[in-house]
């Protein structure tokens, strides 16, 4: 049994975000972090490892510096990292990305008792599409929005969160589960782990490694293989300045209530 976790290095959109004059993101000026939901997926994998002693492998697609993120995850307890990186993979939308990552996972090998975990969505695009699409390409069942995962033999019982409650769903391995922040609290990396992380195996998969896989074709990967294209991008509108009321006393609140009543808002 092994657990494969997909992770992504993303710009930290919670901090200051710089936008270029042409409406694209100024990535160079931004901090990168491990995508928050992916940390919950990693923690779920490591918790299962603590319980069952299985191997945990982190997969990521991205430019070579993403190795740093994989090393960080190794310091938390991940056993191996797989970095999928190639110029040919650049510009991929979610469809093309899932083709490539699925090919990488399949090349590594999916066995009967394996679990694949992913974060629900990444904060750069917020699409939540790559997890389900990897599952489809690997022909595996999926459960998304996991708020709790229990394993008994090869059966997983997952609390699948809905907006108005939850479903309890059972699934057999191998399967794909996407994780949300309510699932757990990610651990910190350990000092011992930080020493060990550079001696753990890191596999790099390039276009050469994957090009003979049936999912990999110039017409299904990269910008040319992406079904979607960006027509235009722009910064969202800023509302015009409103009225700042002077003071914070009863006169001020009376004035505001008067305006609202006068405009028939209340």
């Amino acid at each position: 049994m092994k657990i494969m976790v997909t992770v992504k290095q993303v710009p930290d959109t919670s901090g200051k975000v710089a936008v270029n004059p042409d409406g694209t993101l100024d990535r160079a000026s931004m901090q990168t972090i491990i995508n928050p939901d992916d940390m919950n997926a990693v923690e779920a994998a490591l918790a299962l490892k603590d319980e069952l002693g299985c191997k945990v492998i982190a997969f990521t697609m991205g430019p070579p510096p993403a190795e740093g993120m994989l090393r960080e995850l190794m310091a938390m307890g991940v056993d191996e990292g797989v970095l999928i990186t190639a110029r040919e993979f650049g510009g991929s939308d979610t469809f093309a990305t899932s083709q490539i990552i699925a090919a990488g996972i399949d090349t590594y090998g999916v066995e009967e008792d394996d679990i694949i975990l992913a974060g629900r969505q990444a904060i750069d695009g917020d699409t939540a599409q790559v997890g389900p699409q990897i599952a489809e390409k690997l022909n595996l069942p999926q459960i998304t929005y996991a708020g709790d995962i229990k394993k008994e033999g090869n059966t997983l019982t997952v609390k699948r969160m809905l907006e108005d409650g939850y479903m309890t769903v059972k699934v057999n391995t191998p399967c794909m589960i996407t994780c949300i922040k309510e699932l757990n609290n990610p651990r910190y990396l350990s000092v011992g782990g930080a020493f060990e992380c550079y001696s753990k195996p890191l596999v790099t998969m390039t276009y050469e490694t994957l090009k003979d896989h049936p999912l990999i074709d110039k017409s299904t990967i990269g910008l040319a293989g992406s079904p979607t294209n960006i027509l235009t991008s722009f910064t969202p509108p800023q509302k015009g300045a409103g009225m700042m009321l002077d003071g914070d006393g009863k006169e001020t609140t009376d004035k505001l209530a008067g305006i609202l009543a006068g405009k028939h808002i209340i």
Partner: protein
Amino acid sequence: MAFNSADTAAFKNVWVFCEQRQGVMMPTTFELISEGRKLADELGVELCGILLGDNVDGIANELGGYGADKVYVYNSPLLKDFTTDAYTKVIVEAVEEFKPEVLVFGASNIGRDLAPRCAARLHTGLCADCTHLDIDMPNYKGFLKEVSTLPEERIEKLGTVMINREPHSVERDLKMTRPAFGGHLMASIICPRFRPAMATVRPGVMKKREYDAAKAAAVEILHPAFELSAEDIKTEVVEVVKAAKKMVDLIGADFIVSVGRGISKDVEKGIALAEELAEVLGGVVGSSRACVDSGWISADHQVGQTGKTVHPKVYVALGISGAIQHKAGMQDSECIIAVNKNENAPIFEVADYGIVGDLFKVVPLLIESIKAAKEAK
């Protein structure tokens, strides 16, 4: 004829996935049908709903009242509760049979599970969590002029783009606009080479049209043959549990009073004040992500990029600094009132009326003032 998603000319009509849970239509479905009507009219085609469930004919007619011409209904005990496998199989096979050019889903926890799976199987493009949809180019350009800072001549030039070194006219493409990078950027996405063009649409964003009883009675209900067996479904739904507590209806509310980190001094009192103000206004209590993450209030109250998008008549932000993720969920409110101790809080950038002050002092006074103003009417 074999299904080929690249044979774009073979596809016609706008389809909406009509999500129901326990036999009750999700409110977002009516928003999508209303928006779908606009798209179908712009394309000059029919608007069809696709409804899956167990014995759900009884809720199909209502879709006509919001603009659907036809509803394809698929009934089976195996479709009673949502499973990715069963729903994907039925929808994919229906798309292969009837070939719609546009297919939209609500971006609910179910729509966002199902739509990507369908798009991957159909080999087509999917745009997540859209907040604006267009077909018609003049309308789309008008939208860009209104909401973007793009130069007008650049907007006017839009029409033909290079796709894999071939010129392609976007006239009949679905223009799918969505926020990215936590709302810092907006992008319009197209799916030029494959059909159907697929989108999930953020709940609460599209406006529901007026219900037309005559159209509801006239809607055509169809029951195409389909195959589905228990072996097709690899997951087992053990139970479906509705939250015991009544969820707050942020999307339907005319007045929302939201709390932020500013209530940290006395969380209980802060929430009680917000509840009292909401009651006086006849509204409900919302919250920023910070309060939900701190465990002060349940997640169904959350407004913003990862919460709900709202556009009430009045949105009162109490002690909310106004991170872009929060603003993304409320900046289209008709009137925004902000109370914050920090005069430089970004929330004041979108506020119609701002008061710099301590919410624990200001809110009790505001409650009094509003009560008095209402009584005076």
